[in-house]
């Protein structure tokens, strides 16, 4: 007798997969998740070890192409100006994300109406607000309410803000003098013990896994609870396609185990949560006679409109010790002073700034991302000038959707299972270039006002594709969108995509907070409509 199909099959155990799994498990759904990576123990992370700055460049790189692990799939990024970054494992890319947790702003949902470009979202900031607040409680967010960059009201973050650190305080004072906005950055990092997890110890190694478990990732915040409620999480499970029946409904997924053996997991509903490249790849891999261009792709938009947030780093050097290798990474402070459109600047939309630590001596000694390298006797002066004496503004510019920026299946590159790898096409727009030029100039002014004697700029960093968005946008019109306003595909009534693929526009903020809020909203809808949900017979 065939096993009973899962109520919901989730592909990917990262941020959005964890959120959906826990919500549905709490509602009594029989949840199964297929994750191609593994669980990782905090003891594996290298942040507290001598080899931290060695392994962050290989084994714990944020680039799957650099790591090259069997559970990773390679990316053909020959035609991409920015390298996509991700991690495959329980907790997903949250294991290696910085932890910054800002929300989108009200104008981000109305880009077409306000600026005459791109598109509006089919929902508003006010609609998403309750899900941000619920998600913040599950995650354990540290921050300070009342930020005038957002509408007043709503809940404060559950925990007080993390420290600004000496550099953050300097720059905050400078912004006070300039009359510019700044605020303590909200972070998915605990400033105090919370929900059985320990507080941050300011080690500054968040992007290579948190040794304390203070930085949120769903392997800590969601999966143990979901599993405790009966969810089944299968690791080492690489999905090769979503199967459908003659009625056009998803019936489950075919997947390969670590030994290459093929399995089929039957399900009433399938949820893709494999990031905006991984989920797109699966939809494109799941084509057939009834849908030759890929599953859920009658709009032709699956894989298109990839957005990755063009990023610049503006670093100030100070003539005093700021111990800037320490602190959450994450950010200490943020600024939305130049976030909203001002057409006099020569571009539309804007960028959020986040102030971050500066790593240790090896980062100071090796050639910079901009290619600066100093050897010989002056090497020592160079290292002393950089180690612990910097403050870095990271500038995330809003990336406008462009159908030419897209993910397709490679005709030549495959993963270790022989499945076609994604081929990424991505160029930076003229609007983005002008935007970054403007923001680099303003961030330089900020750091000089703070006392920096020198400012160094890494413009348009290649390894900055942390934010993967937009490849299956949501919308009300099936002709111009892949997903409806509840993250369900227009074409397949029991197929959802809950990761960053759904983003209509990218906003200019770190997106994981919004991805989790949207996933929670989608899961709530699945629960509310469970008795109306079409499922395969």
């Amino acid at each position, binding site marked *: 007798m065939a096993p009973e199909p899962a109520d919901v099959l989730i592909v990917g155990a990262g941020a959005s997969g964890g959120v959906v799994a826990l919500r549905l498990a709490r509602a009594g759904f029989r949840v199964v998740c297929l994750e191609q990576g593994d669980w990782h123990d905090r003891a594996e992370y290298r*942040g*507290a070890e*001598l*080899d931290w700055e*060695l*392994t962050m460049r290989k*084994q714990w790189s944020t680039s799957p192409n650099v790591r*090259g*692990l069997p*559970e990773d799939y390679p990316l053909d990024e020959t035609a991409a100006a920015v390298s996509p970054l991700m991690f495959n494992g329980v907790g997903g890319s949250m294991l290696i994300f910085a932890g910054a947790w800002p929300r989108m*702003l*009200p104008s981000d*949902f109305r880009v077409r*109406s*306000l600026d005459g470009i791109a598109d509006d979202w089919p929902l508003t900031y006010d609609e998403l607000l309750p899900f941000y607040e619920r998600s913040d409680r599950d995650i354990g967010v540290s921050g*300070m309410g*009342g930020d*005038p*960059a957002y*509408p007043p009201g709503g809940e404060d973050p559950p*925990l*007080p803000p*993390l*420290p*600004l650190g000496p550099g953050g*305080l300097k720059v905050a004072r400078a912004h*006070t003098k300039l*009359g510019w*906005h*700044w*605020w303590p950055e909200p972070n998915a990092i605990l400033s*105090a013990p919370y929900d059985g997890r320990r*507080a*941050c*110890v*300011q*080690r*500054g190694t968040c992007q290579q896994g948190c040794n304390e478990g203070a930085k949120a990732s769903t392997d800590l915040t969601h999966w143990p609870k979901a599993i405790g409620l009966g969810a089944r999480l299968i690791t080492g499970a690489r999905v090769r396609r979503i199967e459908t029946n003659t009625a056009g409904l998803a019936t489950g997924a075919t997947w390969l185990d670590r030994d290459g053996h093929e399995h089929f997991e039957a399900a009433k509903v399938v949820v893709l949560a494999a990031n905006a490249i991984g989920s797109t790849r699966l939809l494109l891999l799941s084509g057939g006679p009834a849908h030759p261009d890929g599953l859920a792709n009658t709009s032709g938009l699956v894989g298109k409109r990839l957005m990755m947030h063009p990023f610049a780093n503006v670093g100030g050097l100070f003539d005093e*010790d700021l111990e800037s*290798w*320490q602190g959450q990474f994450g950010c200490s402070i943020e600024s939305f*002073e130049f976030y*909203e*459109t001002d057409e006099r600047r020569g571009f539309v939309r804007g960028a959020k700034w986040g102030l971050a630590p500066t790593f*240790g*001596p*090896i980062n100071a*000694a*090796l050639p910079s991302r901009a290619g600066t390298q100093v*050897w*010989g*006797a*002056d*090497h*020592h*002066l160079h*290292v*002393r000038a950089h*180690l*612990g004496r910097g403050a870095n503004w990271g500038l995330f510019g809003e990336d406008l959707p462009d159908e030419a920026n897209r993910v397709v299946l490679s005709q030549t590159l495959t993963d270790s299972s022989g499945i076609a790898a994604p081929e990424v096409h991505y160029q930076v727009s003229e609007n983005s270039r002008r935007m970054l030029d403007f923001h680099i100039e303003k961030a330089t002014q900020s750091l000089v006002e703070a006392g920096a004697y020198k400012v160094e700029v890494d413009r348009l960093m290649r390894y900055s594709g942390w934010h993967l968005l937009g490849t299956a946008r949501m919308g009300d019109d099936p002709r111009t969108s892949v997903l409806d306003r509840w993250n369900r595909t227009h074409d397949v009534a029991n197929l959802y995509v809950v990761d960053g693929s759904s983003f209509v526009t990218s906003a200019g903020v770190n997106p994981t907070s919004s991805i989790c809020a949207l996933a929670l909203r989608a899961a709530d809808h699945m629960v509310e409509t469970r008795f109306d949900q079409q499922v395969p017979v």
Partner: protein
Amino acid sequence: MSGQPVIPDDPLAGIDADARATFTAVAGHLIPAAYGMPSAGDVVGDARLAFVLRSRPDLREPLIAALRLGMGDDPAERVAALDRDEPANHAALIQVVVFAYYTDRGVRDLLDYPGQVAKQLYSWKVPDFIEEGLTDQVLARGPVWRDPATGRRAVVR
């Protein structure tokens, strides 16, 4: 983690005496003794080099290639040639020198760098920026967000 390069029993296997001497010369050329800091050629012993290659076994083969005979005795010329013609081998050589030098305790002590240490947070204390009234001044300037209803900076009454 799974899938890492195989770590040989002896990470220095394949690095013979000539290659080892070349490494010392290149390390001393890149990071010489100056400004109170020692030379990398003096600091990096076999144990430190083995530590690096055990942590990063992927660097072993390109390092051996970068140290091969037949590139002359001048470390400056070797580094320049690698930089020009063999960027992967050049990058590996540079990284091994830097990794080995800056994981040495004596070097770290001279830089007053204790490593990424754990520090206790006191989140119940009122932060300095509150005491200084810095956020009060941000609030006094009013909303920064753009109201979708008007398209202009919000006004909160």
